[in-house]
């Protein structure tokens, strides 16, 4: 094994050390594992909700976004959106929705690999998971803004509803509708996943850092 590679993947744990301090080395592994589970489970929970309220919809209209799907009253909302010239919601983030599950599996696998790398470089593999929730929001904002600002000028209500940026979080409004948008349980699971990974790296560093120091000194001594 080249010195570079061994520095990259970090030191292996001596059997004796593992037997005496098992918890120390298990903790980061288990933490990463739980983080990966949370991320996978989040696929099955909504990331984002929007509720639309108007007088003639006493039970409200609902939009729910999963990482790979947009559900609930999409058809009715599309029907209403055609009056203001907004494109059907199904055309938004089509690539993201089709790729999201693969992307998330890839991220999970990267964290899996990270669990076996006992150097600080493991962090690089975990950055996508940590940044994922922020990326989701930025993407959502991008598409909402894009759709809201690019209304068909020939639409029937183009005179009363001008291009606008829909509210991604919190209270907004469009026409006679009040909108309330909030993050869903899936999103919070993804955030928890990222947070656990950061916590995991604290344990990771505590476990492997001491092993690295003598190893580096040994290398130096050999040179």
């Amino acid at each position: 094994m080249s010195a570079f590679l061994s520095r990259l993947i970090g030191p292996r744990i001596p059997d004796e050390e593992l037997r005496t301090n098992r918890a120390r080395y298990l903790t980061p592994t288990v933490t990463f594992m739980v983080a990966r589970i949370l991320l996978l489970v989040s696929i099955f929970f909504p990331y984002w909700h929007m509720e639309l309220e108007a007088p003639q919809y006493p039970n409200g209209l609902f939009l729910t976004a999963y990482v790979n799907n947009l559900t609930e009253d999409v058809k009715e909302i599309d029907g209403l959106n055609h009056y203001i010239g907004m494109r059907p919601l199904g055309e938004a983030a089509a690539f993201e929705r089709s790729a999201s599950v693969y992307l998330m599996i890839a991220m999970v696998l990267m964290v899996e690999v990270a669990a076996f790398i006992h150097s600080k470089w493991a962090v690089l593999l975990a950055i996508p998971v940590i940044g994922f929730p922020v990326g989701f929001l930025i993407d959502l904002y991008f598409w909402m803004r894009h759709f809201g600002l690019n209304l068909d000028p020939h639409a029937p209500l183009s005179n009363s509803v001008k291009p606008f940026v829909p509210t991604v979080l919190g209270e907004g409004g469009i026409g006679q509708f009040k909108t309330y948008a909030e993050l869903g349980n899936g999103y919070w699971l993804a955030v928890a996943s990222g947070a656990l990974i950061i916590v995991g790296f604290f344990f990771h560093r505590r476990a492997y850092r001491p092993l690295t120091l003598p190893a580096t000194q040994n290398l130096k001594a050999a040179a």
Partner: protein
Amino acid sequence: MTRKPRAHTSRLHVALAAGVVLTMIAGDALGQDTTRRRRRTEDAKPIELTPAQVADLTKLANSRKLSVDDLVAAAKTYLPSGRHDDYVLFSSGGQSGQVFAIGVPSMRLLRSISVFTPESWQGYGFAGDNDAVRERLKINGKPVEWGDTHHPALSESGGEYDGQFLFIGDKANARLGVIDLRDWETKQIVKNPLTVSDHGAAFVTPNTDYVIEGGQYATVLGYGYATPEDYKKSYRGMVTMWKFDRAKGRIDESQSFALELPPYWQDLADAGKLASDGFFFVNSFNTEMATGGIESGKPPFEAGASQRDTDYLHIVDWKKAEKVFKDGKAKKINGFSVITMDTSAAEGILYFAPEPKSPHGVDVTPNGQYMVVAGKLDPHVTVYSIEKVKKAIADKKFSGKDDYGIPILDFDAVKEAQVELGLGPLHTQFDDKGYAYTSLFLDSAVARWSLGGEYDSKNADEPWKLVQKTPVQYNIGHLCAAEGDTVSPDGNYLISMSKWSVDRFLTTGPLLPQNFQLLDITSPGTTMPVIFDAPIGVGEPHYCQMIKADKLKSWDIYPEIGWNPHTQALDPHSPQKGKEGVVRDGSTVTVNMTAIRSHFTPEHVMLEEGDHVTWRITSTEQTKDATHGFCIGGYNINLSLEPGEFAEFEFTADKPGTYPFYCTEFCSALHLEMMGYLHIKPKAAPKADASDTKPATTASAK
């Protein structure tokens, strides 16, 4: 032994992988539930009136001349906006040929359901030529486009309303309508081929195996002819058992049969239940077999038919009749299976019991043990016991036979009780507290009386006794208690179907509305106040039934886009989004159209004079209450296109011109723009050339 760390880690991986799978499954199930947060309708908090509010209320009541009872009645019936009624009253619409659905206790009209009469809002009978609705309204080839709807009957399972179907009889034309309560539309109309008119329809057996249609005015069965001199020999009464196929939601005419009866005028019917399951009961009048003739100095029917002190309660063992029919012992009259009187007598299907006098309703108590016959021209209700009837039949306790050989059971052997109520008793219903309620037409009152037998212990009143008479305004016919003709009545509310309103409402010309009066029957004893008057200004309703609202499982929208309500299935011909257009085959043209807020596709349809057109429209809406209409002026066409519904009509484009078609339901802000043009080009070239203004977008047929 030294454990390898890797082995440990991989076992951990397996455990956690299993955890992932389990959590995903759980998460998926949970996710479904949490997606939609239902908004709660806010119930009012318990109130306590301050002295100031009491003073305000008192002032208001005094300025509107309201008594304390009035205030209480208002509090019992008023429903704030958005609050729903506890019960739905399905009422016959009388001569309007419709059925009305009314909320109780608010007494607000929810909607009408057209059955025997074309009605344009529902697009019922306004689908051009060969309209399926108009076709099924024909009798002997003649359009008969009204009905005298009489008795609605909700389908039952185990003697309880199940909220699935509603049957309604047309007295004038001896027809039966079948309504599916998923979409509240008429699905079938059957015409009795034996008789011109009827009365005792519809009444169902406890599991809706059969719908009973009792006849009324005797005729020569099967549209035959005989002079009044031959009345006794040739005229006949009848009762028909219509077989209901619940899975299909249709009456199966081939499995239905009738019983030939003497030419007495059979009247109302009721099916036995529990103790009396397997029997049904029909009463009769004019056992005198009077034939009238006031014009030749003979006693008129009204006198001639009221001579005898008793008439005959018909007791029919329908399970026996069914077996006789299935054994092929029925004969055909006008293509319909009829069990003759001889067969009925020989097989022990039919028995008579004397009943005083020209009675009207026969109503079976919830436990099925007693049949209550209201005297009409006798001030009593007469109560018969099914146990005694069965015993009298077994012991052959007959007081004789009638002229047609039907055995007459001994009156004293089958009678349980007689209760004197007052003048003109007509119909009886029941509650949950051991009381019966009988309408008194001449007294214009509702009588509450106590039942005996196992009901005795249910209230403090002596059995078989009149307890209370509440006046109603005026001339009550039928009455209806909440689920009051089932095996488990609810009590709570009672409707008096008062025929005359006289002074109860503003005068609406010489034709006045009927008065549906709501009575609160929750308290036992003598407390039974009228708490609401509801005018019904569309026809004279005859009978109604009141069902707990939560038993109705109505559809919000049709289950699939392109649903045909006639077949209750997705229609293979329904136009779908993206498949619209006009197809021409010679002069036969098919238009495939969709409708959604706020446009039809296509918007221009080009035809030529003389084209025969089949026009199909699917509403692709999926939102509750987003209904569209579709009309073409001058062609007598109007459709109701409820969300997901498919409708079809045919017509011949025989009057050329430019016809705007439009949506007739105010569907959206751009409702007025939801229109298009039908262009029917004349055969001969028009003198003035108007073809320059050709529309830009056309769906012209090739």
